């Protein structure tokens, strides 16, 4: 009986191909939107985690202010000093490197081209800590670092924008009122998941940036890498106590700086993308409901159109539940068909979207199954009322219907 009803439903769908297509469009859009949103959201979350994990699990990032990330401003809290770097190096055990970072946005000029970018002032340890590779030339040496020499290592984007096909090593770049020599080229890291170009940067010794660009001895961020054999938690605790002491924070007062480890940062960022995924998914789910209403509408029209057919079926001995089942299965078949088309569409959209957004495409069987199940459930839910109307028809009236 169910098999026959299914065959009948498929035939009925094929007979009104255009109408069926338009009817399931709502479900198709709903299902594909839900799956695409969730898949891309998961991909983005994964990418953020991957990227942060690629920095290593042994990195602490210290910033002024109470939180890293959006929502809380670090304004008001004092910046760090170079002396803090020394203190951390000397007084906290188990650290591999303490790297100061100060950045400044500038316009770079070279070969009569210009490009807006950021200059990062830091120490030589920055390259190893950030897992950067050198594609050409060298990084600055200790003497240059100490002297604040006008030398720089540039990212691949800078090379492309300012030097085109030429070898940049040995060339000069004008930064504000001074010229610096390009001594090295960083290997490309590509675009980050947050959409920013990681290769769009110029790295100089911290001292050079402080003297020539920011004009202060402040350090904006401290990156601390912990030795593999040392405990992260201990290091984090020691760093926190030392910084509290150096910044004269009273016993009961809150920190005016934040020490984050990479795991925490990953959690914070992926938490944000998860919330976004959830919200987008919810919006998409609403369109599934709208699709269900469309199915109900068409099924009601179909029942009215086929009143005579229902009358014939009832007259020759169809039971109420058999007619109900027939129309219910038709609604479920429509909705499921929408689900299947939606899944196919979502897969294509997710793969394309993932490529565009530079996030990995993660096939998520759970959300695919869930969406399919949900669309079938919508068929049952919104198909029931029309099906019951069909089943309850009076055969005499139905046969008289024109």
């Amino acid at each position, binding site marked *: *009986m169910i098999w*026959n009803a299914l065959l009948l439903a498929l035939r009925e769908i094929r*007979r009104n191909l255009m109408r069926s297509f338009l009817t399931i469009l709502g479900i198709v859009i709903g299902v594909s939107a839900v799956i695409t949103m969730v898949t891309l959201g998961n991909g983005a979350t994964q990418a953020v985690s991957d990227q942060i994990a690629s920095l290593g699990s042994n990195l602490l990032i210290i910033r002024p202010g109470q939180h890293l990330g959006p929502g809380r401003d670090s304004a008001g809290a004092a910046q760090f000093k170079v002396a803090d770097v020394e203190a951390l190096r000397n007084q906290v055990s188990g650290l591999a490197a303490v790297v100061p970072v100060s950045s400044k946005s500038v316009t770079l000029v070279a070969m009569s081209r210009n490009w807006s970018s950021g200059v990062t002032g830091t120490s030589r340890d920055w390259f190893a800590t950030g897992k950067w590779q050198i594609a050409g030339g060298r990084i600055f040496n200790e003497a240059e670092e100490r002297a604040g020499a006008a030398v720089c290592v540039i990212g691949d984007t800078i090379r492309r924008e300012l030097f085109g096909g030429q070898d940049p090593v040995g060339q000069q770049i004008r930064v504000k009122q001074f010229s610096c020599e390009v001594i090295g080229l960083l290997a490309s890291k590509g675009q980050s998941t947050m959409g920013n170009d990681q290769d769009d940067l110029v790295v100089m010794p911290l001292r050079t940036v402080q003297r020539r660009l920011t004009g202060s001895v402040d350090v904006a961020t401290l990156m601390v890498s912990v030795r593999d054999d040392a405990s992260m938690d201990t290091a984090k605790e020691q760093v926190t106590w030392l910084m509290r002491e150096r910044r004269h924070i009273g016993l009961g007062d809150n920190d005016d700086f934040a020490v984050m480890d990479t795991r925490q940062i990953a959690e914070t960022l992926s938490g944000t993308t998860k919330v976004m995924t959830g919200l987008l998914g919810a919006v998409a789910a609403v369109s599934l409901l709208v699709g269900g209403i469309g199915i109900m509408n068409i099924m009601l029209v179909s029942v009215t159109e086929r009143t*005579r*057919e229902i*009358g*014939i*079926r*009832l*007259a*020759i*001995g*169809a*039971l*109420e*539940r*058999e007619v109900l089942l027939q129309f219910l299965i038709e609604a479920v078949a429509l909705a499921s068909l929408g689900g299947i088309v939606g899944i196919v569409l979502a897969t294509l959209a997710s793969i394309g979207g993932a490529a565009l957004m530079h996030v990995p495409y993660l096939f998520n069987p759970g959300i695919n199954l869930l969406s399919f199940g949900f669309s079938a459930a919508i068929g049952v839910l919104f198909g029931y009322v029309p099906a019951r109307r069909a089943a309850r028809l009076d*055969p*005499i009236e139905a*046969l008289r219907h024109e």
Partner: protein
Amino acid sequence: MSEPLIVLTGVTRSFGSGAAAFQALRGVDLEIEEGDFVAIMGPSGSGKSSLMNILGCLDTPTGGSYRFRGLAVESLNRDQRAMLRRHALGFVFQGFNLLARTSAQENVELPLLYRGEPVARRHELARAALASVGLSGWEHHTPAELSGGQQQRVAIARALVTGPSLLLADEPTGNLDTERSREIMDLLAGLNRDQGITVLMVTHEPDMAEYAHRIVRLVDGRIASDTRKAASPAEEGAQ
């Protein structure tokens, strides 16, 4: 023979209620024996259709009792009546009432589908039923591709395919010309004679009623006359 196939006792059927109530049947007593061929005649509004609907178990009487093979139909619920229709009754309508855009074969198979017959048996029975009404070779034509007479034959095949004990025909020739009508009536008379199927037919054409063995006339919801015709040997021979 023990109890007749159909026994109606004081059957009434009214529509609406109160002052606006309309009495379609005002107490009908009728007995129909198995194997009979009965024509029900009467002017419009005489209650023919109401009687037919009750006899066909599509409707239940307001008052009185209807026993089909000793079974009290008025006490059956909707699904039980559907089961009775499925297993014991066959319907032929004035307007044919075939499923559009569905082949003759599938139309005939429809009642078998609800009986849960397997596919192979459905095909076999439907083909045989179509052959018995002279439509071999037309199995895959849809109603739109068939003439009125052919459509009515498909409808008769559909009514016959389950081997019913009672065939109810509501103005079966109402939409057909005289020649086609005669063909259909010959077919019904043949089924009655050769297969012993009880045929109950509503008609307002005296020519068609002539085919029946018994003519019941309804006027204003009551039986006005009930005449049995002696089967003439000439007619038997002509078939």
